[in-house]
């Protein structure tokens, strides 16, 4: 039973991963990726990493919708109304893809892994919680700091108002500006003109 489900899910996962790059509509591409991930999540559940699989599903919905939103924002012809492929170095990319599949697959098939010891069945989540709070406390807190850095970094990069004026109007730090003005720097806008 689990085997059957596993094969179905891996089929869905790989096929929809392929569809991601073969569809014209950006929204469809993002949701094909979501389907692929969801199938991976089901496989994780089958591996009794229940919490991991479900939490992946939880993350996915938000992340892939955001992905769709951004893809529609920044792709011309986002819905694929005019069918058109936008690829470069196609053959090289296929070769690289196949090579990495073969390489990693070989590791999977021929590699030797320690035999599976009985894995925890019931309180996987609880053990994960203990791990988080004790041994891997640093990882947990580092993740917090990393996420904070991500938030601030992403907002700073994406926002229009930089410290020295609007991002799209050649804002330059005053010091740099002075040194450039010695030569022939571009005119800068007023500070904080937003």
């Amino acid at each position: 039973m689990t085997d059957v489900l596993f094969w179905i899910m891996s089929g869905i996962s790989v096929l929809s991963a392929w569809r991601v790059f073969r569809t014209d509509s950006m929204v469809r591409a993002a949701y094909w990726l979501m389907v692929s991930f969801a199938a991976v999540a089901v496989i994780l559940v089958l591996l009794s990493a229940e919490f991991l699989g479900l939490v992946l599903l939880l993350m996915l919905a938000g992340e892939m919708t955001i992905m769709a939103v951004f893809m529609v924002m920044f792709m011309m012809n986002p819905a694929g109304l005019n069918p058109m492929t936008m690829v470069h170095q196609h053959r090289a990319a296929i070769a690289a893809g196949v090579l990495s599949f073969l390489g990693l697959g070989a590791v999977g098939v021929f590699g030797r892994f320690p035999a599976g010891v009985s894995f925890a069945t019931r309180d996987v989540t609880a053990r994960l919680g203990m791990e988080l709070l004790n041994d891997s406390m640093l990882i947990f807190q580092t993740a917090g700091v990393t996420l904070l850095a991500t938030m601030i970094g992403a907002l700073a990069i994406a926002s229009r108002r930089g410290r020295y004026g609007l991002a799209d109007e050649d804002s330059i730090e005053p010091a740099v500006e002075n040194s450039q003005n010695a030569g022939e720097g571009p005119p800068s806008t007023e500070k904080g003109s937003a």
Partner: protein
Amino acid sequence: MTVETLLLVAAALFGIGVYGALSQQSFVMIMMGLELMLSGAILATGTLWAMAAGGTPKGQLLAIVLVTVMAVEMAIGFALVVNVYRIRKADITEKLKTLRG
């Protein structure tokens, strides 16, 4: 469902991701490729955790870190896309010769 088959599936996902990341011109589509590579990695981690590492919680933690990496990659990646588009009006890699802001 054995270690080998699971890792093969993970490798396939990774391979498709590599193909996508290298072949696509649009920034956001490249990020789709990266996501797929990470999905392969998460599956491999999950596999090894369940089948070879005796279910130690550290394995799951690694997978969670991978999910975190995915979120961070997306957030920073999209922020960069917004910024590049704002300044250069560029949405595909060809339009971007240098990375200087």
